[in-house]
């Protein structure tokens, strides 16, 4: 699974730490997510999509 978290995060000027705080995870988890080394739970994916104000299907997709 691939994602565009970094693209949408930088677009709204949010740091990794800021996003991590908003969705309730550690910064390392955001780093691994952006590198495509970790697949989030549905709950986390929905929370990230909500914080980045982006539809989930634009944020996460199968490679």
């Amino acid at each position, binding site marked *: 699974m691939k994602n565009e978290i970094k693209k949408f995060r930088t677009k709204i000027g949010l740091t990794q730490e800021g996003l*991590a*705080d908003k969705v*309730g*995870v*550690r910064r*390392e*988890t955001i780093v*691994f997510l952006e590198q495509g080394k970790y697949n989030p*739970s549905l709950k*986390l994916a929905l929370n990230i999509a909500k914080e980045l104000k982006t539809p989930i299907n634009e944020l996460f997709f199968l490679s």
Partner: protein
Amino acid sequence: MNLKTYNKIRLGIVFVTAFMFSQSIILHNFFIPIMVLGLSFLVLFYLRKQVVEVISDERDYQIGGKSALLAIQLTSWIAVIIMFVLYALSDKNPFYQPIAMTLAFSVCVLMFVYSIIFKYYSKHSFKDEKRN
């Protein structure tokens, strides 16, 4: 309190606990480690509540689950191998037999507890609202 300070204090408590354990062995006082363990648990529990940052998240729990499973499998295999070796050598030294028996029963208990917990989580819904 931030996460760095918490981790530093936790490391300090681990050192103190290890030191107290070694002292209790030297002094033959086995009441000290129980007291120290209880006190450390309470202090860490209190400090954990003071940390405003996220200490662990779903990724940590996922890694923890996989690590625990692998640790159980490895421990069981090692214990079983040692048990067979000790049984094989029990003719030469009869003291090996109770050690082998203890190992065998320990593995059985570990597997039994693992099965019960696994069954519990597979039957009941697993909500992690407290974690996030």
